[in-house]
């Protein structure tokens, strides 16, 4: 008895929705970044799932996954640096309080 493809797709969709929920409802900028990481992982899981079920002879999906994980790491480093810079400026990491574009 093996797992059909649909189960993995539903799992990945559920994780994406959980991440979107967190990104849209939480106030703390760091939690928003955590939620974005969850959405990223849900998307990357799909690449590996389709590689496993359909194209296991080709390495393209694995390469895309490696590059996507690297970009996600770079993105989280920049995001956290921005959070720290904003905290220095506003003395807060609430996304509701970041309302002015300049100064």
């Amino acid at each position, binding site marked *: 008895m093996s797992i059909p493809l649909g189960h993995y797709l539903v799992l990945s969709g559920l994780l994406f929705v959980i991440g979107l929920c967190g990104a*849209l409802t939480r106030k*703390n900028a760091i939690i928003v970044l955590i939620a974005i990481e*969850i959405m990223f992982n849900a998307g990357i899981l799909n690449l*590996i799932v389709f590689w496993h079920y359909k194209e296991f002879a080709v390495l393209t999906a694995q390469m895309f996954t*490696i590059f996507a994980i690297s970009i996600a*790491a770079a993105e989280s480093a920049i995001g956290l640096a921005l959070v720290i810079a904003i905290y220095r*400026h506003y003395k807060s990491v*609430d996304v509701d309080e970041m309302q002015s574009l300049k100064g």
Partner: protein
Amino acid sequence: MNAAFWILSAITVIGAVLAVTLRNLVHCVLSLILFFLGIAAHYFLLRADFIGAVQILIYIGAVAVLILFAIMLTHNVTGTEGPREVLGGKWWSGLATAGILGVVIWWAIYKDQIAAALPSNQKAQSSVLEIGRALMSEWVVPFEIMAVLLTAALIGAVVIALEEVMRRR
């Protein structure tokens, strides 16, 4: 494989839900690590061993630690706030948006019954040797561009985080 899928899925979903709902930021990061471990175990289950190892090394080893450092630098970690302080303004519209997207995704998967019933592929396997060869031959240009991108991100993160400190001097 069947039982492993359900157990790992439960762990992953619980980790994700706790990571976005808990009040204490450090607890959120610990749940996030549980979520990353669940995803890595799913990769091992799908026979993508190298990707699972990369997931553990980069996400748990680097990203989670980075987030922990950011929390320690920005916030008091006691975090006993009420729900009004945790949720942003108009949180109900965000919840509705996520709910509608979830229904759409579920409907799209449910509609394509043939693809959704595709059985698991027992022959799938990957070797680190093949991945290394492909990275150094066919995929060498994206690989080098990735190196430049990571260097730029490193320098950019330092410049952004230190901007006000440098201006003060």
